[in-house]
């Protein structure tokens, strides 16, 4: 059974005449690491709001079809219950961090779940260690750098031990080095915990070393879904106006000028390998 399943799902927000997402069919297995992309307004954020139940419980509107998460129909569960299965991290950590210090921030979720004190402490320690936050536990969020704030936001989602982590443009406000570190962290969490991760990101090249699947949306529909090499070399990707990594643009142009490629490289290492093969011909 897939961990997440959408069957013929469409949704329009209460005040809107148009569907934000339309006819979505999607199966996601446990342990997948997925890049969800498409131009602004294509329905990415709406799609992930369906996974954690904010749609239809918080954002009112017309929901059609069926969404199942870990075997539960999202329409029949509360957002609070779903939050123990699905963690969410937003673009702007300053909007998400609510507590006076990092320790309180990490305790917030498990305390709300009503877990025993000992269990709460265990989870905080475990998560703080894994995400290298131990030295920051008594800091207030505003004393932290953007990258550290985003690490705290991820950690506080993980203290609920979710199976799924959704991230909506987690690196949008970070400098390139911090952005790279956050994506590396996600790659490590995906491997170590078999955590299922869906990340919305415009800077696709950051994720190429980690994701095995790319879902591309346009006007509320999924227009391509597959391995990065399939999706990012497709005409749909070109047409949709997503920021195709420049390495891929190089190989696409080489192909157009008649160079024979035996595979479509998406990472720098693959690019070097492809050139090695070509230079031997």
């Amino acid at each position, binding site marked *: 059974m897939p961990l997440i399943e959408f069957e013929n799902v469409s949704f329009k927000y209460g005040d809107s005449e148009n569907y934000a997402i339309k006819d979505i069919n999607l199966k996601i297995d446990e342990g997948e690491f997925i890049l969800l992309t498409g*131009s*602004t307004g294509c329905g990415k954020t709406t799609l992930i709001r369906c996974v954690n139940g904010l749609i239809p419980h918080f954002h009112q509107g017309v929901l059609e079809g069926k969404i199942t998460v870990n075997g539960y129909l999202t329409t029949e569960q509360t957002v609070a219950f779903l939050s123990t299965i699905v963690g969410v991290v937003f673009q702007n950590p300053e909007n998400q961090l609510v507590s006076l210090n990092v320790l309180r921030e990490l305790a917030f979720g498990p305390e709300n779940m009503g877990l025993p004190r000992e269990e709460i402490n265990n989870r905080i320690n475990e998560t703080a260690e894994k995400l290298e936050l131990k030295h920051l536990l008594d800091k207030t969020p505003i004393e932290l750098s953007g990258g550290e704030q985003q690490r705290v936001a991820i950690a506080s989602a993980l203290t609920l031990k979710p199976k799924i982590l959704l991230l909506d443009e987690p690196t949008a406000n970070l400098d*390139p080095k911090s952005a*790279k570190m956050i994506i590396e962290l996600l790659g490590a969490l995906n491997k170590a915990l078999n955590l299922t991760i869906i990340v919305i990101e415009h800077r696709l090249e950051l994720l190429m070393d980690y994701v095995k699947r790319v879902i591309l949306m346009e006007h509320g529909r999924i227009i391509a879904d597959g391995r990065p090499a399939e999706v990012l070399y497709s005409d749909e990707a070109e047409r949709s106006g997503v920021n195709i990594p*420049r390495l891929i643009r190089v190989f696409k142009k080489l192909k157009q000028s008649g*160079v024979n490629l035996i595979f479509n490289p998406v990472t720098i290492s693959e690019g070097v390998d492809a050139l090695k093969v070509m*230079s031997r011909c």
Partner: protein
Amino acid sequence: MLEVINVSYTYPSGDTALKNVSLKISDGELVAIMGPNGAGKSTLVKHFNGLLKPSKGKVLVDGVNTTNMTVAELSRKVGFVFQNADHQLFAETVEKEIEFTLKNLGLHENLEELKVKALEDFDLIKYRDKSPFSLSGGERKRVALASVLCANPKTIILDEPTAGQDLVQKNNLLELIRRFHSEGKTVVIVSHDVEFIVDINPRIITLVNGEILCDGDVQDVLANKMILEYSSLTPAQITEFAWRICEELKPLPNNIITVDQLIEALKTHIIGGSL
């Protein structure tokens, strides 16, 4: 013309953000200020519109010392667009947002004309009666730009204009910046976005720990491993790819930063035979 002469700036908290910085930006120049977080980039550009006044040294805008000018006087000459549009917008409607700037700067006479021009320039006519906060992130950015640029300042400062923007929005910004440049405006961009900066092709000044590390063109700075490292910048994917090819395959020219440059180099040095 913007002149920064031996400027140091220390925040009330005691943190020194700029240390004896000197630079000159001529009219019509396109300049990017790059460097790690906390290097002093925002502190530097806030001196250009008088939001900050130097602790030591002086800043001259068109020859006048900023300590002798009010922020209102300066903002007619220097428009400042913040990274986060939400920190800047507050009015009930898009139209009022723009009117506020014009009234504040005393531009009452041709207010209507300037307002409509700004709404048109940024494709906001259809949103004129809407609340800025009901618009999408990209649209709010356009409102923020319009509300600063309606007064037609000679110098425009953009703080991280591409943060959180998708390709379509980035291309719109690119076009806009090129338009300002062709109109002879001075444009100063604070940015981490190496690929965007490659496309704009400006003069680049990198700041590290409150000091200028280097001042050069795109090739000098963004293809130089040592400068990138000291400035905590990550190379463009193309540049990193070119370096890896040099290490593992064959030497290539060491200043590759664009897709076309790399294709040219590959055709010449590596895959000439397979074409």
